[in-house]
């Protein structure tokens, strides 16, 4: 009999708001302030992409002391803040014995990018003889996991997962498996990314997948993805553990699916996405027709949205046209390593509100993207089971299924 896993706390920071309440308002309300704006974190060169989905109104000094800021990169700051929110939300007290029976798995695609660039600037431009002593601990992609473990005294497994845009999807999947195997009773899981920097955008521009317009998933005139920054953390527990302490339960994780395209470093493959989704359905022991809402990967690139639609048709067959599918990347941008976690929270909120968040900025129908994408406005829907998908560069895929808890 499979151990049931539930979500009891959530924390989120992104272009769509600095906590879960702001995130909810921004995602669902009709009058939504535009979250995809000209870049302010650095000055792009004339030929570079000029827009991004930055976190707004964030002053690190308000949350972290000077000493902390020397040790904690922006990406790990986001990870810590969302963990603070999630743990407070869960109302959980991490005593000595729970600390040993808990894990921290926090994904990222690149880790401390700001620190990496600053370090190289000091070396190559300023000709400084030595880097600051904490440069390495600060830039490591595992630093968020370390900082969370240190702050909350968590002594079970703690590490980072990295699979580009699926990093936090794999984090959630791994945590679910650990909880199911009774290795741990609680997991602090999620992802963080803060790579809106000149060097990183220089690299991304080379790939020619960034939009200079906005993020328009599934729209015929879509022109690429918009990089976002932020983090999301979820507190997961075994149902038994949650019930014992009378925790508030947001949703149950009933299925996880992982797969690899084994195909190409950037081009997606329908079969890979299909395999991840099918694996999640089998793991959840439900049929395709049991899903009502899908939070798509929906990055807004010509390729992804077309291939993803194809994969949805293959997996869901006749039921595909009954599905509500939306990409919330149109609101919060593509948060890369944090994407799956941010979007899982969007999916869980959708289940709790019984509303599908919209795919914003949709303008033109594309015959190759022919599903119901909940365009431009949130819609009420009876959602019992919802799926959140992430299909990353390099063909690394995760599919997570959440169920309304009763």
């Amino acid at each position, binding site marked *: 009999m499979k151990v049931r896993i539930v979500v009891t706390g959530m924390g989120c920071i992104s272009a769509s708001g600095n906590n879960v309440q702001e995130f909810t308002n921004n995602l669902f309300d009709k009058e939504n302030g535009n979250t995809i704006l000209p870049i302010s974190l650095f000055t792009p060169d004339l030929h570079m992409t000029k827009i991004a989905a930055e976190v707004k109104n964030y002053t690190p000094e308000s949350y972290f002391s000077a000493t902390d800021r*020397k040790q904690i990169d922006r990406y790990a700051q986001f990870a810590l803040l969302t963990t603070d929110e999630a743990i407070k939300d869960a109302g959980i007290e991490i005593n000595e014995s729970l600390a040993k029976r808990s894990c921290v798995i926090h994904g990222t695609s690149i880790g401390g990018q700001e620190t990496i660039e600053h370090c190289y600037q000091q070396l190559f431009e300023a000709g*400084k*003889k*030595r880097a*600051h*002593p904490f440069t390495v601990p600060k830039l490591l992609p595992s630093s968020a996991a370390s900082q969370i473990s240190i702050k909350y005294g968590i002594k079970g497994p703690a590490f980072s997962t990295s699979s580009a845009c699926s990093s936090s999807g794999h984090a959630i999947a791994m945590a679910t498996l650990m909880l199911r195997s009774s290795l741990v009773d609680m997991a602090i899981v999620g992802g963080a990314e803060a790579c809106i920097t000149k060097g990183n955008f220089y690299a991304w521009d080379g790939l020619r997948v960034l939009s200079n317009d906005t993020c328009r998933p599934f729209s015929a005139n879509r022109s690429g993805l918009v990089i976002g920054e932020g983090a999301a953390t979820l507190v997961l527990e075994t149902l038994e553990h949650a019930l014992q302490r009378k925790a508030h339960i947001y949703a149950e994780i009933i299925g996880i699916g992982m797969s690899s395209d084994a195909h190409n470093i950037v081009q997606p493959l329908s079969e890979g996405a299909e395999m991840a989704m099918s694996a999640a359905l089998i793991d959840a022991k439900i049929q395709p027709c049991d899903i009502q809402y899908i939070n798509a990967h929906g990055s807004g690139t010509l390729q992804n949205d077309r291939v993803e639609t194809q994969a949805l048709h293959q997996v869901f067959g006749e039921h595909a046209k009954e599905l509500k599918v939306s990409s919330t990347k149109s609101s919060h941008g593509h948060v890369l390593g944090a994407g799956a976690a941010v979007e899982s929270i969007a999916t869980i909120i959708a289940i709790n509100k019984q509303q599908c968040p919209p795919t914003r900025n949709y303008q033109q129908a594309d015959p190759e993207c022919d599903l119901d994408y909940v365009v431009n406005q949130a819609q009420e829907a009876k959602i019992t089971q919802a799926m959140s998908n992430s299909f990353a560069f390099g063909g690394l895929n995760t599919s997570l299924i959440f169920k309304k808890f009763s």
Partner: protein
Amino acid sequence: MNNIQTRLEGIISEYTRDDITQLSLQDNLADVGIDSLGLVEIIFDIEENFDINIPSEAECAERGFSFASYEDVVHIVTTLVKEKEK
């Protein structure tokens, strides 16, 4: 106090415990709140400020350099600055 000491006190006092208002030459760094992480940062700041290179732990041991007391640090910096000026 000479110039080196003034500058050094400025650097080290950034890392001492809040209740420490003044440093005296005999003060043991550990006693005034400087742990190993603090020491690593002090060394970095010293190198930046004086444009000198603090040798590795092994070489420091060979040369009889210690970071135990404030006086020890003054000695190291004074020696290395003099060597640099030669």
